[in-house]
């Protein structure tokens, strides 16, 4: 079977249609949750790298980072990639909060607005996906 033909018959395209008929993707929230875990792991991994030097923190950061990638991989099982991948932007929110709390970086009004705007975008995606997928 040639690649094009196989792509037309991806099981998840069929599943999406099936879901649309039922009026929603009931498993989507698992994917959303896993993407939040992924974003948290990516930030935590980077924070460990930034805060501590040496071999052990490097390995620990790497393990956390890979764990995050694994969560993302599993997230894709539960929903469309075009919806779930942008949820990775939650990592911008986490890193801003971690930067402020742990690294004592300054919190400007613009930063707060930016974080809220990203949150709104994430909400639109997740809530809309639940209805439309």
């Amino acid at each position, binding site marked *: 079977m040639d690649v094009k033909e196989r792509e037309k018959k991806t099981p998840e395209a069929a599943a999406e249609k099936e879901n649309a008929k039922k009026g929603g993707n009931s498993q989507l929230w698992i994917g959303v949750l896993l993407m939040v875990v992924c974003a948290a792991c990516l930030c935590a991994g980077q924070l460990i790298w930034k805060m501590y030097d040496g071999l052990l923190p490097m390995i620990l950061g790497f393990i956390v980072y890979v764990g995050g990638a694994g969560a993302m*991989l599993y997230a894709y099982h539960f929903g469309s*990639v075009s919806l779930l991948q942008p949820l990775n932007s939650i990592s911008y929110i986490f890193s801003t909060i971690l930067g402020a709390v742990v690294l004592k970086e300054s919190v400007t009004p613009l930063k707060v607005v930016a974080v809220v705007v990203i949150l709104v975008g994430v909400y639109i995606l997740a809530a809309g996906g639940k209805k439309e*997928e």
Partner: protein
Amino acid sequence: MIGYVLVMILMGFVASYASICLKRATDNRIRPIEILQSGWLWAGGFLYVGASLLNIFLLKHLPYSVVVPLGALTYVWTMFLSHWLLHERITKSKVLGITVILIGVVLLALSSAS
């Protein structure tokens, strides 16, 4: 300058195609062994590392406040690529959500630039 623009476009495309591969890897597989045996996982992982290297290259040569928002353009790439390759639907909420996220990321980049 035009070289950097091309690298940026390439980075977005590679990162986005990486997630398409990773999506295929977990399409109808849930057991770790099966996922690890999928060629899509390794293709996706390889492309992901490639995109990260391009990202690091760009961060070395261009300001952070330019590279980060452009990195977020990957979501737009993914919307079109997944529609084309995986037949995922482009819905109103996806377009709106991604647009709002992009605005937020630009604001965040501006706030760290100032």
